[in-house]
């Protein structure tokens, strides 16, 4: 008993006041579209098809990068011959729709040389982050108060996301100080934190878990697989794909796996209190 006491006193408090201050050495890749020549090396190197190159009209092509499918393998960074793809350091990414996780640019093709030159960043259709945020806030207005009870559901994950979700409860991050608590039953939950490409064999269990949670239930999809099927793909005999193929998803937290800070950020975004509680500069993209 005495040794336990000494050990605790010696250790002191390890919880970090500002969990979002630490910048990782690598987050998601960032494409400098103005340097891009559309050589397609990055798209070929990408194991999940997160980088997509298409032809929209004669003489016009697009390049799209989706963080929803990105597994942060850095292959595109080393594949790019023009140094247009670099290692970004933002990891606290959260969005309200899949489309918001995609950045795209339009290119003109020179009919003689075939060379592609950057024309403009494509604006994604659909609501902006601000509009989505206020919609979500309206839906859960006043209901969650200052606490959030979370039921985690692994619907097919490789368990990488589970490791990082569990890490949010460790003494360094200690997510309970934000009023977030993991509960044992969906009946006690305000929010389902769902990982994995939803498998055929977990589809029914996931739906039943959702039905068991009381309204207004919020769904957060975690990880490249939860956002898009990731490396396992969508529509295979065993993997249905992203969580939104089975349930309505309110917030997407991409990454393979997302770091604990990103998961924490996603939960705070889902509570609609991200900005109120923490510094605005680490707000989502």
């Amino acid at each position: 008993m005495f040794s336990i006491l000494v050990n605790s006193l010696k250790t002191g408090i390890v919880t970090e006041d500002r969990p979002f201050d630490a910048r990782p050495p690598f987050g998601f890749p960032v494409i400098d579209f103005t340097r891009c020549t559309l050589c397609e090396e990055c798209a070929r190197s990408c194991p999940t098809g997160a980088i997509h190159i298409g032809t929209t009209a004669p003489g016009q092509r697009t390049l799209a990068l989706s963080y929803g499918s990105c597994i942060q393998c850095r292959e595109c960074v080393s594949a790019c011959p023009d140094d247009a793809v670099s290692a970004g350091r933002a990891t606290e990414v959260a969005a309200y729709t899949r489309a918001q996780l995609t950045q795209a640019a339009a290119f003109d093709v020179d009919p003689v040389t075939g060379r592609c030159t950057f024309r403009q960043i494509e604006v994604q259709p659909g609501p902006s982050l601000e509009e989505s945020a206020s919609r979500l806030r309206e839906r859960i207005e006043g209901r969650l108060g200052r606490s959030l009870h979370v039921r985690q559901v692994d619907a097919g994950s490789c368990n990488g996301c589970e490791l990082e979700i569990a890490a949010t409860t460790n003494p360094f991050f200690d997510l309970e100080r934000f009023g977030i608590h993991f509960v044992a039953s969906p009946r006690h939950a305000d929010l389902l934190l769902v990982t994995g490409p939803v498998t055929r064999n977990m589809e029914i269990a996931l739906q039943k878990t959702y039905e068991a949670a009381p309204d207004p239930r919020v769904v957060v999809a975690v990880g490249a697989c939860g956002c898009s099927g990731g490396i396992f793909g969508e529509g295979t005999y065993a993997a249905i794909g992203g969580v939104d193929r089975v349930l309505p998803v309110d917030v997407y937290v991409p990454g393979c796996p997302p770091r604990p800070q990103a998961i924490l950020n996603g939960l705070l975004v889902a509570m609609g209190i991200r900005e109120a509680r923490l510094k605005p500069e680490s707000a989502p993209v």
Partner: protein
Amino acid sequence: MSTVATVAAALGWPSGTVREPHPGELTLEAHAADLPALADRVTGQFDARLVSLFASDERGSHGRFVVHHVWSLPRLKAFLRVAAPVDPAEPGFPSIAARYPAANWFEREVMDFFGLAPYDHPNPERVALHGDWPDGVWPLRKDFHDGTSVPRVEGDFHPFRPVTGEGVFQVPVGPVHAGIIEPGHFRFGVAGEPVLYLQLRLFYVHKGTEKRFERLPWRHGLFLAESVSGDTAVGHALAYSHAIERLAGVDVPPRAQALRVVLLELERIYNHISDIGAVATDVAFAIPASRAQAQRETLVRLLERLFLTRLLRGTVAPGGVKHDLSQEGCDALRTYLRAFEREFDDLIGLLIDSGSFTDRVDGTGVLPNQAARDLGIVGVAARASGIDTDLRRDHPHDAYDGLQFEVPVEDGGDVRARLMVRAREVEQSFVILRQVIEALPDTPLRTPMPDTLPAGASALGWAEGWRGPCVHWVATDERGQIARVKVTDPSFLNWPGLVHAVPGNIIPDFPVINKSFNLSYSGNDR
């Protein structure tokens, strides 16, 4: 006498039939009818252990299926793969499960995925496919497209063994569990608190991983291998890379071999600390649990500093490694090891000096040595039940051949034994890491890989991951594309061990017993 001749002579097989296509990997083609006799001879002559058992569909190229038995022959530091052709007109093969229970799930999986019947199997029920999967649809056959949408069959499933008697009842748990863990269904038959038996229903997270490998270019297969079980990214990436390198005949530079050892040991340490903490959590001993979580987080942050990744994804590449460890990196690791070794000692001391803790783990969840041998248990769980096995020593890969280290073995077979094997393995990992970083060879990090793999070839790749052996078998088709990848995660062999360790214990001890095995659902289900 050469290994090939030794094996042929001992098995009483014509010497020309045994080949050694890659170092440390023997193959033998046999008639399916001879599989049981060969199993008896391999185990009788060489004390062999079953590593994997699987099928491949070669109807397109050779008009046949093939059933493969892979044995470890530790005395010869070699694996033996026995390949037996199966005629598609008579889709079956003789089972060895009655004599070698380790083959039980493997053979049923072959039945589920290939439609090949294991003749005389003692329990030929589905293991991988769930009840709502229609009959006659076999996803790993080549004529099954991986994008097929398979309809659900209506019916009443989960035919669990019934319980009868006064005060005897069943407790169903899962697939969605109470903690932050993976899904699976447990069905306990209990009389009051004591568990009479435990039944498992797994494969809820079956993602079609092996089929997926066949669709991806081999370079991208590496990332799929890293996602077989997220906590074993290095173990599976190494097993896959080893198979690809052996296929291509590529040697990995010495510095990369050494760094792979560093990566694999760091993965072992972060998982073992995490599990030690989790055992403390499950007996409600909060202080060491919290200390272990903090130690683990400190380590994964160091990993991120050294390798740009917390969970060591994207560090291994076929042909070598992607990241060097600089002189500063080595210094940081040395400093870390010094501090961490002391903290780790404190943590273990906190646990085993506490009577209320040892009361909960001593004699809890015993897996007896004989049961562990019969079931073919591997890795940490095997060593905690007195089986002295470790691929790092028995089939050395990467730089392990030149390193001095011990393989900790405990006899208890209980939760404490599994905890102590982990604790002593962490200490051995310190010993290994120090040896490696004191003498990092100065060579390139990667050998360039050829653009294409040899056609119609195959190779095994293996690594002793933190949980146990990760074994991949990779075969190419006539164009050199991936034709089949069989992934064997240690969890697949060890889940039946849990079923044996739990009965006789009380239900409140189940979480700590389960945690002491800490098996991967994803690695098992793939």
